[in-house]
């Protein structure tokens, strides 16, 4: 019997790459032109883009791990916020920056554990579970935060020797805080793990067709717990970044919606780490341009510019920039009959 039904598969390898490659080429050309016109500003904007995109890509990676395993996580915002706060408090009390980062990771992981527990064990609707984490984070950080505490410093950028001397690319790419480098590393690592290792295969199976995975002896619950907790730690890293590297302090609600934008980054990136990275850069760019325009003082009211990332997110999730297909079994609690 004929089994070679060659259908126009929606995500055929060739079609997948055309759009991003085109976009990248266009972007490169634009960047070069702008650089030649005004090197200092271009450099500043691009450097800012990389920094702004860091929490977004980390948040998106968290979302990707969770959703690929079948758990919808809209509590990334809360994870980032509480991690930022606890990392900040650790910094205040001990001055040990790496300990603070660790605390951030731990906080994110614990909140991830909470989400996993409510979703898997209690079979609570995952969106409500994520909402609870968000409210909890707002409440706890608001309750325990007191103004006027001093931190003993922030993590400063590390310039990679030699590489940071390259014009344009140097200051932009190779003079960044360590967590930014870690983020880029994580993108590559997760891309490889998800698509080339047994762990990644099983994770994806558990998110697409958990019963199929169960019948070949994979522990669906264990896979989901593990991925959500690791994802949580990554979100915690984003929180630590916000407070320890970028700003060096804490404010109530300092995440300001980044956790939700990270979800859009994930969807835009079609649940792929590398795709999400591209999307994160895009959103980071929007933020960077917004700051730049405010600096330069244009006639456009700054609130309109402030709206851009949010409007962009809406456009993205409405599918106006391409169809997206989430993992098939996400959002539904797995029942062993």
């Amino acid at each position: 019997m004929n089994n070679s039904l060659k259908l126009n598969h929606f995500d055929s390898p060739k079609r997948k790459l055309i759009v991003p490659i085109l976009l990248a080429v266009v972007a490169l050309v634009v960047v070069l032109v702008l650089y030649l016109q005004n090197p200092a500003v271009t450099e500043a904007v691009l450097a800012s883009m990389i920094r702004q995109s860091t929490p977004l890509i980390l948040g998106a990676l968290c979302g990707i791990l969770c959703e690929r395993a079948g758990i919808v996580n809209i509590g990334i915002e809360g994870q980032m916020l509480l991690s930022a706060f606890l990392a900040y408090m650790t910094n205040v009390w001990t001055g040990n920056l790496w300990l603070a980062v660790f605390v951030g990771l731990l906080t994110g992981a614990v909140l991830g554990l909470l989400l996993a527990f409510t979703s898997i064990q209690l079979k609570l609707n995952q969106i409500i579970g994520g909402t609870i984490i968000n409210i909890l984070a707002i409440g706890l950080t608001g309750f325990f935060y007191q103004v006027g505490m001093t931190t003993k410093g922030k993590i400063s950028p590390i310039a990679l020797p030699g590489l940071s001397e390259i014009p344009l690319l140097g200051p932009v790419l190779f003079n960044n805080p360590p967590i930014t480098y870690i983020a880029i590393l994580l993108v590559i690592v997760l891309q490889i793990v998800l698509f080339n290792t047994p762990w990644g295969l099983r994770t994806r199976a558990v998110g697409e067709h958990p019963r199929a995975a169960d019948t070949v002896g994979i522990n669906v619950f264990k896979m989901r717990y593990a991925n959500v907790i690791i994802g949580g730690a990554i979100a915690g890293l984003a929180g630590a970044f916000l407070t320890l590297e970028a700003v060096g302090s804490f404010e109530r609600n300092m995440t300001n919606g980044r956790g939700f934008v990270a979800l859009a980054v994930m969807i835009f990136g079609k649940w792929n780490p590398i795709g999400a990275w591209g999307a994160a850069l895009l959103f980071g760019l929007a933020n960077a341009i917004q700051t730049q325009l405010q600096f330069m003082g244009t006639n456009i009211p700054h609130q309109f510019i402030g709206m851009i990332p949010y409007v962009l997110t809406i456009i993205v999730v409405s599918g106006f920039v391409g169809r997206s297909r989430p993992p098939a079994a996400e959002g539904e609690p797995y029942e062993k009959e």
Partner: protein
Amino acid sequence: MENTPVLETRNITKRFPGVLANSNVNMQLHKGEILAILGENGAGKTTLLNIIYGLYAQDSGDIYINGKLSPITNPNDAIKHGIGMVHQHFMLVPVFSVLENIILGSEVTKNGIFIDRKKARKQIVNLSNSFGLKVDPDAIVEDLPVGVQQRVEILKALFRHANILILDEPTAVLTPQETDDLFRIMRQLREEGVSIVFITHKLKEVLDIADRIIVMRRGEVVGETVPAQTNEADLANMMVGREVLLRVDRSPAHPGNVVLKVVHLTVKGQSQMHTVHNVDLEVCNGEILGLAGVQGNGQTELVEAITGLRKYDEGEVYIDEKPIPANNPRALVENGMAHIPEDRHKHGLVLPYQLTDNLVLCTYYQEPFSKHGIRNEQTILENASSLIERFDVRTPSPFVIAANLSGGNQQKVIVARELSRQVAVVIANQPTRGLDVGSIEYIHRTLVKLRDGGAAVLVVSAELDEIIGLSDRIAVMYRGKIVATVDAASTTREEIGLLMAGAKKETVLQ
């Protein structure tokens, strides 16, 4: 000991809330034999197999492999003991490739960290060649036809060195020809020393392929025999516990005018399996037209298009010469169509609603059930009470929610709702799927009664016997087209089977 069974269950008992699924089940499987477990829906066959494969835990009882007590608590244990299972609803990840599905859980790696696709591919090709199960390792599973997907499932088991193969209703989704193919593979596996248990409710198959037959009923083993010593009637009797009418009792039809007319209907689906090409259909009042065909040849899409649940790209639907707008179930209802849907949980009922609401699901907006947009709870209740009695729905009260009824009674609720209106056309899609014999007989009688009362009835079913038993005329669907329409009286089961498998009309019919 030469006669030690490769697989034996002793006194397996399993309870679910409200149901004794398996009760002291003793069965034995010998090496190199094909054992059939026969029983109607709900007899406990799948439960038993799920216990053997480690998906359920039995309440009591033991499993013995080659004479040794072997507790099986999860699929990994089963796999270790050489048991492989092919489920009725395939356990394949649709977006993965054949290769990825086969190695999932038993991945072939280099350095223990990365998946070694090349090595895996080689192993799969070797395996598929030695057993005659041809597959393309890199094809994406959701694009494959059902027969090929089943091969992938079998390969999955063989990849894990299974020598005991469990097949759950393997022929439910196959054409008669694909079934023959499967039986050929099963015989070859038997030659290689693989022992096979398979579940079915199809009497003919059992007599064809099995070496031994076990019959289950209501969770118990009620009989054991071999094909040479039994026949369909005997087996049916054992399955149900009484005389079973294997043919539907009916008198010849007296068809009148064309009531339902479908012209040039085309649905462009997302893949070839979901497309309908240029279908023409006519059903007259006073006749039953049966639409035969294996699942996945466009029947679902065709029925959805005719019943307004799906847009169609070309064509027209007429009831009594009146064209009906597409994508509008309400217009069809108002023009006298009744639709008993294929998936009663998805389309036919709102499970959390009480029967009162379910019974006015399609007519709630009309008087007397509501006026000026405000519901009249009294008339809704009266309607429910009356229908429950008329159609013999077994329920303690009209306020019970639909989810708490048995499958058969749920279907009765749908039938009650649809047929209590003045109907000109009835479309029944897989009307007896998953039901017990008693309910099946009831539904068949009801459909024949409707036809005798003058309605035009279209029955769509993947069960060839049902089509042959009920229909006055039979249309066969294959790859989205109607390949032939014949008079039921002048055709044979074999002819229909061939047409279902894509044979050309000219070669099949005289």
